[in-house]
């Protein structure tokens, strides 16, 4: 093989592998990406049942109910709108009423959100960024002040647990 032939073989193989990688990325992008929505967006956007997304906000005070066989029900609110959530499994360490939470799952036809994953923050003083943004959008957020719950940017921001109940 001449130098030119060898080089063209090499370029061809590189092209094929890179094209394959690009194809994989694009197809995976279409199927696996999960959007974040606040309760207000869920209410206003008419999300189709069965769509998988992340719902984030505050756990509404007094909404947590424990049912038989480990099922729990609670409501997620951004003070503008509220979505009822059902979940089966152990709740994270810092899951508390009145505090920030991000859940992942699908919307049922009756409008409740069936979560298979609950992500809760791991620190008193920290609020998940998406939740803080959602509250800001509702005008219920005071920077560094006595906001309803949690004060991001103050003291020690701790980690959101990247943990999930499957």
């Amino acid at each position, binding site marked *: *093989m001449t*130098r030119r032939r*060898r080089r063209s*073989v*090499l370029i061809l*193989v*590189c092209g094929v*592998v*890179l094209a*394959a*990688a690009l194809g*994989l*990325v694009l*197809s*995976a*992008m279409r*199927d*696996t*990406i*999960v*959007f*974040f929505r606040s309760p207000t967006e869920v209410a206003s956007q008419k999300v189709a049942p069965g769509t998988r997304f*992340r719902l984030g906000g505050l756990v509404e005070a007094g909404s947590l109910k424990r049912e038989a066989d*480990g099922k729990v029900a609670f409501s997620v609110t951004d003070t503008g709108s509220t979505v009822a959530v059902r979940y089966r*499994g*152990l*709740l994270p*360490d*810092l899951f508390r009423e009145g505090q920030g939470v991000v859940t*992942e799952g699908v919307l049922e036809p009756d409008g409740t959100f069936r979560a298979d994953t609950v992500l809760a923050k*791991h*620190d*008193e003083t920290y609020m*998940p*960024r*998406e939740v803080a*943004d959602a509250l800001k959008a509702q005008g219920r957020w005071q920077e560094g002040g006595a906001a309803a719950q949690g004060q*991001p*940017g103050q*003291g*020690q*921001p*701790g*980690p*959101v*647990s*990247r*943990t*999930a*109940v*499957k």
Partner: protein
Amino acid sequence: MDLNAYRKVALVLIEVGHYALALALALSLTQMVMPVWASRAGDPVLRGVAVPAALATFACIAFAFAALTYAHVTSDFSVQNVVENSHSMKPLIYKISGVWGNHEGSMMLWVLILALFGAVVALARNAVPPTLRANTLGVQAAITAVFLLFILTTSNPFARLNPAPMEGRDLNPLLQDPGLAIHPPLLYLGYVGFSITFAFAIAALIEGRIDAAWARAVRPWTLAAWCFLTVGIAMGSYWAYYELGWGGWWFWDPVENASLMPWLAGTALVHSTVVMEKRDALKVWTVLLAILTFSLSLLGTFLVRSGVLTSVHTFATDPARGTFILGILVLFIGGSLALYAWRAPTLRQGGLFAPISREGALVMNNLFLSAACATVLVGTLYPLALESLTGEKISVGPPFFNLTFLPLAVPLLLVVPFGQTLSWKRGDLAAASQRLFVGFALALAVTLIAIAVTWGGPVGAPLGIGLGAYLILGAALEIVTRAKGKTLSLSLRRAAGLPRSAWGTALAHAGVGVTVIGIAAQAWSVESLATLPRGGELRAGPYVAVLEGVLPRTGPNYTETVAHLTIREGGDPVGVLQPGKRFYASRNMSVSEAGLLTVGASQVYASVGETGADGSVGIRLYYKPLVLLIWLGAVVMALGGGLSLTDRRFRVGAPALKPAARDAAGPVPPHSVPAE
């Protein structure tokens, strides 16, 4: 000095440390300018300044780091950094590791390791051309200077607090774990180690000269950084596995991806420098890869330190810091790529090779690793890009990476044993397949046995086990083929006489196989959860956990609720698990502590949830078959890298091997003689 004088020095130690850090900045600026300028002017004396400057920079930073550590250990609450991250009741090990358990301290560790590498390059006795060494130290100093400037202007760990509080706010409880003492230093040794390779690449571009000697000078640094990064990532993974209490070992979290990307690029670099060293080919690509690897390390630092991500690793969110690091990123990545675009065309192209050859296989390795790295990069940055462009918030999770990363990783792993078997320049695919036939056959047998034993289980797992077995057998066959002689004793002598790099390669590739088996076996892991009353039972796989009771316990700076579980297998007790939930009053925060029982390479894993009013407790129980192989494989990979590092050819200039010892090693087949 009498005792009082010591006390006086200790009182201002923090200020002296701060001053030492500023001094280090001045020294590194000197080290940055002098050698590069002197090399141009051809002044060997001035060029020599780089060596003492590098040593002095390291000494200053080490002193500053020691001063900060002293403040942490003695709980000096007049120092803000100590107040925010320490507590007088905290155990000593966490007082020390807590130094880097926060933003300022971890940046201090970063520059400490950066300066350490600079000092080691300055002292290293291997045969690096003096101009190349001087320019490399200059580039290294530029990186050190910029990061010192970052610490001094935006992240000062030496700030005092007046009045000093009586007690500190304690370290984030998640970080109060021996993992913090091990994981960040190892990871940084890897991350930052690639700065040397980067500095060598830039120095070569400045000089406009690059050859096999360059590759030989760079390779040990690349290998060492790669070994540290491998173990560092594995340690982080194991830490997340037992600390977070969810039994997962890899989450495709952006922060994990930030360390995986330089690892993938670094792995490619380790292989492409071999081609360059042995065959004088792939030069232009290797230089680019060296630049990209460290750029990805910098990108990782940016992602973690700037606070654009929210995760365990983001200690603070301060826009000034993010902007500064973004500036560093643009300066180094942009600058080095511009220099590359300008100078790379002047580099002479090297040796020719056929597509089917060792070089060709290593090109495939680089191609697949780069493509895999690119998919991880896209998956990590896409959510950030989308949010800043459209405001839409998305999460890219494990499904994305499983669909993109795995299809690229599997063909790469299939090629590995071939690459080892093919000869340089022009290989014979048929002969290679013949040599690997035994490996194929045995791996297939392993797969079939796995399918038969676990009939009805997940389909992918036995294939993964087979792939792992194929990698291990391929590595073993390579050694066997090269060492095989007429008699057993001759073969053994030959095997002992093989270059250490051959053994290192085989060991590292076998390590990949071990990790693959561990990962594949996780498809059989079992999870079960229940709220148990006292005496209640929970089953996971072959194991049954019985809740004996729940007891309170008091630690130095926390209170804990511990569940006592007896683990039984087929009715016989095999061990006790004591998962707990710790409450840290200083932070009003609770953290789960998993209970682990190791049986061979498998583990039984339990964590506790909420305790009910009636004394019942939520228990999550996992059976994780062969899970330890995941991290054991990484350790084997790093050992292989370390063994390669001790190869004769990297010790040129070091005391040579005695001639007698070489002769005793016996005759070596011709194709295994290193092409020196």
